[in-house]
């Protein structure tokens, strides 16, 4: 029987021990009228070989286009060792380290992960992960409203330069708690918030979300935005790309006091694109806010003999202890992905991660230059960017993308639906995985696509 080891004689012995004639008797407390005779819409089981063939056909049916889409998920080279180690059964098939003595491997790894995220963000503490970047931002918004002792406001400001899906997820998750999300518009020339255009008297608010880079790839004036926010008694929530943090000023160093919370999508750190998940959300904060942070946190302590070891800590924040008074309902998080990310960051180190970031950036710039050499393609925003850039076409952007897809190229993310005021605009990204030939292939196909438009 698939994955069931019982022989007939063992089953018989077990039934006899229980004192029943057959397995069906085990379900005798379920009202007879509720029993379902069959689950006919589930197909019969397949052998492993037949399943492998089916899945190989399905995978092939996706095709293997050359992809220049970023928009929140980035293709990077993943060293072979990352998933070789992460899928070892001892990591893959363990659970939340409730029994600390039997989970020191996972616990130490998570402590090392927390240390790495503290290093990247320049903040004091990290949790052990949330679900993904979007839900991490929603948790950060809830956390900021709880943590802000200067303001009891439930108003949070989010610029339109934050990933539009993230904004929608925040809305879906926080609105039931009476939190009001207000959007701030961006400067159409620079593609970023204009600190000079922020209101002198914004009214009481709990926090401002500051993306770096923002959804357009544009780098925000994080220092001035941070100081403006703190000047009004509100907290700063940074939404950051972890690869970029190898290069860019960390949230902990923004402005005169630093951001209060940093969160984002951990996928670029060794997690494959894989249709959007599983990824992981990360969250770091200043130590004064640690008791308001959601999710698991690992601490170093000592055992009965004084030997160092690791354990889940600050569990009084969590649902399994606090129930209705918990900081969040989160229970399971994304441990396996954090395992991969920790191995990835160890293999790359600060210098390797910096090179991934800078090469991705240089590649995107080369792609921008190659595309902007084509008549009818132009850059849009004036501020500096990181590894993703907005281009404007003289033609219908969705039709151009269709033509590129005909040529096996995913040419980027159309901004038309979310930002109609920008016109025919495209968000493109070329990470370190793209070769000069790949860039040329895109530019050639783009030239042809626009010529036919």
């Amino acid at each position: 029987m698939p994955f069931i080891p019982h022989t007939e004689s063992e089953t018989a012995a077990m039934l006899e021990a229980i004192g029943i004639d057959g397995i069906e008797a085990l379900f005798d407390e379920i009202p007879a009228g509720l029993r379902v005779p069959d689950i006919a819409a589930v197909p019969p089981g397949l052998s492993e070989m037949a399943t492998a063939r089916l899945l190989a056909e399905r995978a092939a049916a996706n095709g293997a286009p050359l992809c220049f889409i970023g928009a929140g998920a980035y293709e990077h080279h993943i060293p072979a060792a990352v998933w070789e180690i992460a899928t070892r059964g001892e990591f893959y098939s363990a659970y939340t380290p409730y029994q600390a003595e039997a989970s020191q491997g996972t616990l130490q790894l998570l402590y090392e992960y927390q240390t790495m995220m503290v290093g990247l963000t320049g903040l004091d503490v990290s949790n052990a992960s949330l679900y993904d970047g979007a839900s991490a931002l929603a948790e950060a918004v809830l956390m900021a409203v709880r943590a802000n002792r200067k303001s009891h406001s439930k108003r949070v400001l989010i610029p339109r330069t934050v990933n539009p899906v993230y904004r929608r997820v925040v809305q879906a998750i926080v609105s039931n708690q009476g939190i009001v999300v207000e959007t701030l518009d961006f400067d159409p020339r620079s593609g970023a918030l204009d600190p000079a255009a922020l209101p002198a008297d914004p009214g009481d608010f709990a926090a401002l979300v500051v993306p770096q880079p923002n959804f357009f790839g544009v780098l925000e004036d994080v220092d001035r935005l941070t100081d403006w926010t703190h000047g009004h008694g509100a907290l700063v929530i940074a939404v950051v790309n972890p690869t970029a943090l190898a290069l860019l000023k960390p949230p902990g160093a923004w402005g005169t006091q630093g951001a209060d919370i940093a969160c984002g999508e951990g996928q670029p750190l060794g997690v494959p694109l894989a249709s959007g998940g599983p990824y992981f959300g990360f969250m770091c904060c200043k130590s004064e806010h640690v008791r308001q942070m959601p999710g698991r946190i690992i601490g170093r302590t000592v055992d009965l003999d004084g030997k160092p070891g690791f354990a889940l800590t600050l569990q009084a924040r969590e649902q399994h202890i606090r129930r209705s008074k918990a900081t969040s309902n989160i229970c399971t998080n994304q441990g396996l992905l954090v395992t991969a990310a920790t191995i990835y960051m160890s293999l790359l180190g600060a210098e390797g991660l910096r090179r991934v970031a800078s090469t991705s950036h240089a590649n995107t710039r080369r792609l921008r230059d190659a595309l902007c050499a084509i008549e009818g393609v132009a850059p849009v925003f004036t501020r500096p960017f990181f590894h993703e850039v907005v281009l404007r076409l003289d033609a219908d952007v969705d039709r151009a993308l269709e033509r590129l897809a005909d040529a096996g190229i995913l040419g980027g993310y159309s901004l038309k639906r979310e930002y109609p005021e920008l016109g025919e605009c495209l968000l493109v990204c070329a990470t370190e995985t793209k070769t000069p030939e790949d860039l040329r292939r895109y530019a050639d196909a783009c030239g042809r696509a626009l010529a036919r438009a």
Partner: protein
Amino acid sequence: MTLIFERSAPARRAALQAPAEDAAAVADIPAALLRAGAPLLPEVSELQVVRHYTRLSQKNFSIDTHFYPLGSCTMKYNPRACNTLASLPDFLRRHPLAPERYSQGFLACMYELQEMLKEVTGMRAVSLTPMAGSQGEFAGVAMIRAYHTARGDHARDEILVPDAAHGTNPATAVMCGYKAREIPTNAEGDVDLDALRAAVGPRTAGLMLTNPSTLGVFERRIEEIAAIVHAAGGLLYYDGANLNAILGKVRPGDMGFDVIHLNLHKTFSTPHGGGGPGAGPVGVGEKLKPFLPVPMVGKTGDGYHWITEKDCPQSIGRLSAFAGNAGILLRAYIYARLLGREGMRRVAEYATLNANYMAVRLRERGFELAFPRRRATHEFIVTLRREAKTLHVSAMDFAKRLLDYGFHAPTTYFPLLVPECLLIEPTETEDKATLDAFIDVLSDIRAEAEATPDTVTGAPYTLPVRRLDDVRAARELDLAWKPAAAPP
């Protein structure tokens, strides 16, 4: 215990893993936006990394290495084929925003998974997007809220939750803007119907229920419960934590539930990964269909497409940046195809057989079952209150001593209603010899507790560390390593 940072040496690198230096790469980014110094990451070789994390892995208990009867968590074997096939390169490289024409293989799998989950739960529609059980719960309660709001029924501000429920239930109710109100359980482990009748009313938005409950028994009067809640205008929420016990035998939709979530990392055997990822799809009856979270997958002719906000204007919206934990959904799909309909029914049968066998054998050895007159489901509760009182050896001591004998501990001190409890869930993938060995060891530990209680209260002895000082961990917070200060 050496940290990866302590293996670091300046300028040592795994050079092949990153691209070559490109000096002018970031010349266009102003210095004010760049970081001043390098972040603290280890500088180590590839072999150092591989050896360090391989050795760390060996400090873990896991399903692949140990019996792991962690009640309510369904720690069953995670078939290797699910991981291998979900990791085919064309699945891994698919960008989540790839157009539908480059997504048909993936979308076909997701559509068929939705259909299979509808069938096994008896619900009318399924959304796969919630990323864990707690997000599934959030989605479910948010839909209940959206339903009442859409009807102009704004007075309902309470979610009823049995006192035996998982902590996520009341926490979720609060996240959705509700008050959580507890309903007591009677001595036989069923919801106290009189208390329920007294609690329901015009303020009742819904009842969250796990069936079988966390007490390891089937809620026999589920149809009456459904009738009481529905008569009061509330909706019934099914927490799918224990679906493994009834897969293919009885369906939440037939019991009267309006909305459910499943834990695919439990019932559909996707990996627990040292604490996730999970996947918590939601299923609904007709009333809640308009409110399902997006995206979902639809089918027209031979083609598959995304169903989005445009198609579902009343949707509670999006809960993830893309489409949930896609790779986990794919693993669950593969597992479902391997098992098929007969295999699914056998899951519930043998999970229940194993639990009842263990319960009977442990009772024969003199252990006290929390609900001895009830049939066990896929899990059951032993209470060690007698041992705690007479021998001064607690359930936690038993749990720690089990580790020395090579067994992961059952869930301890949950549910909160039963004193000194072990919640034991063997799952269907364990063989009789393993169950017998566990039963013998639990008896041996009780003998130790009688003869030399200190042996048990001081356990474990054979693991990388002995019991850890949790109080110190919380009081003297050490949450990240810091390099030793340079000598002055």
